[in-house]
């Protein structure tokens, strides 16, 4: 494979990059990283896909087009997408408030924003059930409905975008905004042309995490959602049902589909992020 010579450009640039020598320490670093990554991620992922493939295409298709399963997958994806959109707005807003505003209790808020990360999901489920279940003390009853899935996703994914955006916002130079303002740019323009492009990569990364986490969520919603077929049953519960019936290929098929969709979403988010960042 030779790249066509372009006018005035040295052809050697790319090969030189590929052939550059690793120092001993970075070689070891790369080796450890790859080994670690393979053991924890690549091999297990390959095993899931291989298990799904073992059932054959027909079985895969039958599994994911099963009415009850596809309904669960749709509910999961819909709620995950919606939650991600909400997080993009609210998460960014919370990060903004935490960085730019000074108010009483800010330090405390900083601390508790990570709680959804730290809380074991089943405990989160119990808390949600007691707050938003039957006889909710807050007057919000979502138990055993599709909304409960949305609520549980919101809870566990809250910190992702906040924690991604916050450090970027802290690094952002306010002088630039002031300069833009002095040149007559409106607040909206400043946000759109200066702040947003800088935040876009962080928002996209947080959104990807948030979506992926929601798609696989189980513990926090399982008590609240009631797992009612066609209403509040999510994909991970269908996976569990398949496993209980010794239908590993079926379980892996659903998991594979979710993996592929999560991957696509991450790619799309990355493309969008690049577009927005370029606008700046």
């Amino acid at each position: 494979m030779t790249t066509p010579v372009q006018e005035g450009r040295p052809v050697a640039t790319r090969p030189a990059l590929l052939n550059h020598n690793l120092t001993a320490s970075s070689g070891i670093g790369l080796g450890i990283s790859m080994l670690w990554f393979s053991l924890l991620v690549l091999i297990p992922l390959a095993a899931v896909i291989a298990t799904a493939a073992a059932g054959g295409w027909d079985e895969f298709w039958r599994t994911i087009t099963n009415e009850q399963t596809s309904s669960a997958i749709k509910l999961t994806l819909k709620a995950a997408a919606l939650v991600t959109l909400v997080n993009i707005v609210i998460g960014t807003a919370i990060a903004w408030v935490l960085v730019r505003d000074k108010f009483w209790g800010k330090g405390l808020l900083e601390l508790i924003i990570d709680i959804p990360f730290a809380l074991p999901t089943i405990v989160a489920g119990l808390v949600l059930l007691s707050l938003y279940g039957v006889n909710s003390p807050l007057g919000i009853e979502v138990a055993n409905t599709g909304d409960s899935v949305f609520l549980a996703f919101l809870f566990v994914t809250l910190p992702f975008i906040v924690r991604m955006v916050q450090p970027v916002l802290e690094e952002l130079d306010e002088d630039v905004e002031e300069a833009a303002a002095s040149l007559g740019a409106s607040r909206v323009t400043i946000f759109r042309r200066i702040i947003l492009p800088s935040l876009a990569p962080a928002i996209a990364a947080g959104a990807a995490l948030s979506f992926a986490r929601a798609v696989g969520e189980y513990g926090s919603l399982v008590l609240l959602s009631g797992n009612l077929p066609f209403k509040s049953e999510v994909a991970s519960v269908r996976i569990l049902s398949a496993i209980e019936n010794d239908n590993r290929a079926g379980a892996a098929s659903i998991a594979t589909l979710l993996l592929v969709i999560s991957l696509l979403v991450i790619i799309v988010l990355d493309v969008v992020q690049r577009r927005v960042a370029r606008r700046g």
Partner: protein
Amino acid sequence: MSKQPRNLGTRRRWLAVAGAATAAVVGLTACGSDSGGGSDETISIVGFAVPEAANKAIAAEFNKTDEGKGVRFKTSYGASGDQSRAVEAGLKADYVHLSVATDVDRLVKAGLVDPSWNTGPNKGIVSTSIVVLGVRKGNPKNIKGWDDLIKPGVEVVTANPASSGAARWNALAAWGNITRNGGTEAQATDYLGKLFKNVVSLTNSGRDATTAFLGGTGDVLLAYENEAILAAQNGQGFDYVIPDTTMLIENAGAILKDSTPAAKSWLDFVLSPEGQKQFALKGFRPLNTAAPGTVDLASVGLKASDIKGAADPADPFPAVKHLLTLDTDFGGGDWGAVKDKLFGDGKDGKPVGIVTKAIADSGKASE
């Protein structure tokens, strides 16, 4: 510009990963805790969640006997199907105590348990209980039996027979209530359809169902007598009703082929009156191979007042009018006659089980 935030982001991600890994390690260590002292042998017990308290009490008594002196225990408890799959996948076990016999059969197929495990006088059963209907304090909806569960406005909570093997006892009880009392299979199918239409929460384990019910969901909980009694002993009780027709729950126990020698004497002890006495104290019905489900407390050296937490303290394990058993009503203890017919999930092109279909239809109908 984008270099800086990416690094920070990556670091945060690593922190999250490290945190999750630590939590997992802590969780695992907590699971495999040792109990007892001494030095001789160690028996690894792998069981479903419910009999943990009873097994602990039996182990304490076992240690007092000659065979059991100095024997230590390593225990692991969890959902029955999960535990069975874990042992199949290599979790060390000398003795398994599982909710349904099919979970032991999985180990027979894997060559870990001798195929003759269920040929003794107890047919592989080590603990028994019955399906009961948990109700709200004072039984405001006046639930007396299965017919009341399909009335409009009655909300039912049950573990999901599709995702929890243990919940299949509930479905068998509901099905058998029709077929045993002169109904046809078509009528039983119809009943299941109506029942699942009234279900408001289908959890993945009996424990979750109880939690949801105690959290305020539903009017009726399909529960097990022993869980209701144990919950009451732990101060989390709920009223329960024993329907005229209900199902005998038979939990299987077996030792593995390459188990330590003490495991055999352990199993014998579990089946002895002394072992069954401990089960009874925690709410299980002591084994009665001659008349399954009928309780003679004197045979295990107890009297009614010893059992705390039962609905009727004078008669903690009342006789059931029509007690369904796997053997007499469902073609044998191996579940062969009902596994696919009622619970099949349609894999390999087999027809979908009646219960599986009733659950799916319940969601569609109310759309």
